[in-house]
């Protein structure tokens, strides 16, 4: 194994501008992915199929929001600005999240005739979560010590999310034909976008070179192996290779869905960013 440098403080990271730039880029990706998908999850509040699921789903969205906050705080320590401002005051083109995270939950709006797709919610969170799992496992060995610590912590929580989504996958795949068809259609939709989750964007070479996280290929390989096995266990056909959407979220190209989400979620905050809560 190659011995990478160890960076054990924000100050040390800042001393090396190249390292800092690579680290910053990856942290924005991690933070924005969780933040935006947690927001989509929170839009299910009161709309999940039953009350128990409502509690579970909001609890998981809250955990994910917490994970995003940790990454924004790491950015704050690196001098990028206050965590709240990073989450709520940036423009859509400054966001680095994948397109999969920003897609709407279905047709309609939260407060205007929401017709959300539950199978899509399950498929999206399951696939997103399984890729997050391999990423967090790799981040445990990050050269940026603080990132490795928080990743370990997140894994302990994330484990429960995966248990939850896996139960849903199994149930939908093995109940009625209708449920199975809806799940397969949802997986197909998720598949078109999910490949982007393995991308570190334009700075991939530096990010990996500095040992901040393992390479895109190694993560992809690990995921394919474990996921194909899971699909067999669940009783689903393997949909094949993951696709990449037309827009590149990692480069700040987004669909109108993101602008829409950001406008709603920051509505209160932008009124008075100085207000204390």
């Amino acid at each position, binding site marked *: 194994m190659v011995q990478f440098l160890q960076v054990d403080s924000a100050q040390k990271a800042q001393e090396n501008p190249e390292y800092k730039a690579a680290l910053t880029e990856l942290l924005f990706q991690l933070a924005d992915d969780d933040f935006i998908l947690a927001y989509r999850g929170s839009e299910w509040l009161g709309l999940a199929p039953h009350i*128990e699921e409502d*509690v*579970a*789903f909001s*609890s*998981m969205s*809250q*955990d*994910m*929001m*917490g*994970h995003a*906050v*940790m990454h924004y705080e790491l950015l704050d320590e690196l001098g990028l600005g206050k965590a709240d401002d990073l989450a709520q005051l940036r423009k859509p083109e400054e966001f680095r999240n994948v397109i999969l995270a920003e897609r709407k939950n279905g047709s309609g709006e939260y407060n205007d005739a929401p017709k959300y797709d539950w199978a899509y919610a399950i498929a999206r969170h399951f696939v997103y979560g399984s890729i997050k799992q391999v990423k967090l496992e790799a981040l445990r060995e990050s050269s940026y010590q*603080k990132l490795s*610590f*928080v990743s*370990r*912590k*997140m894994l*302990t*929580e994330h484990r*429960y999310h995966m*248990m*939850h989504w896996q139960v849903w996958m199994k149930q939908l795949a093995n109940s009625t034909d209708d449920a199975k068809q809806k799940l397969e259609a949802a997986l197909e939709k998720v598949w078109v976008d999910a490949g982007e989750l393995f991308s570190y964007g334009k700075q991939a070479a530096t990010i990996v070179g500095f040992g901040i996280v393992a390479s895109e290929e190694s993560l992809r390989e690990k995921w394919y192996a474990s996921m194909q096995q899971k699909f067999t266990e669940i009783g689903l056909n393997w949909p094949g290779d993951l696709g990449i959407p037309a827009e590149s979220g990692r480069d700040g190209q987004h669909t109108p869905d993101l602008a829409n989400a950001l406008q709603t979620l920051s509505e209160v905050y932008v009124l008075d960013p100085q207000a204390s809560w």
Partner: protein
Amino acid sequence: MPYEMSAVTEEKCWELLEEVKDPEMPVVSMVEMGMIHQVKVSDDMVTVEVLPTFVGCPALDMMKNDISNKLKGLAGVKEINVSFVYQPPWTSDRISNEGREKLKTLGIVTPPPQQDDTWQVACPYCDSPYTHVENLFGPAACRSILYCRHCKNPFEALKPIYE
């Protein structure tokens, strides 16, 4: 000697911290929950390092304030620094035996001190092992909802967190 009387000690801080309750489970203190990692005193400054149980826990800010407010009263303290740290990570085995007993009186079961592959939970009311998980996700990030088939009572359990 007046100087010694007002000198702040780590011991004194720990004593006071025993009185700071977990905002979501006020029968136990944060010390009993194993959430206080370190207390350091240097001159008139106290530094407290806290290990969060769950990172998205909305009570974290409240805990921070409660700790500051508690220590503020100490003579000779000018500055209090409370920060959350993630190394070592908080794990279920950090909960003290006293803490476990107190949570049980609330009807909340704590995970076994040692890691176990299966999560077997005995009912806090009748000790029956015939329980099942109703919802992994309960009223707070750290708790699940369970049901006792024997005495037909619902109860809660802290999710096992091990590294």
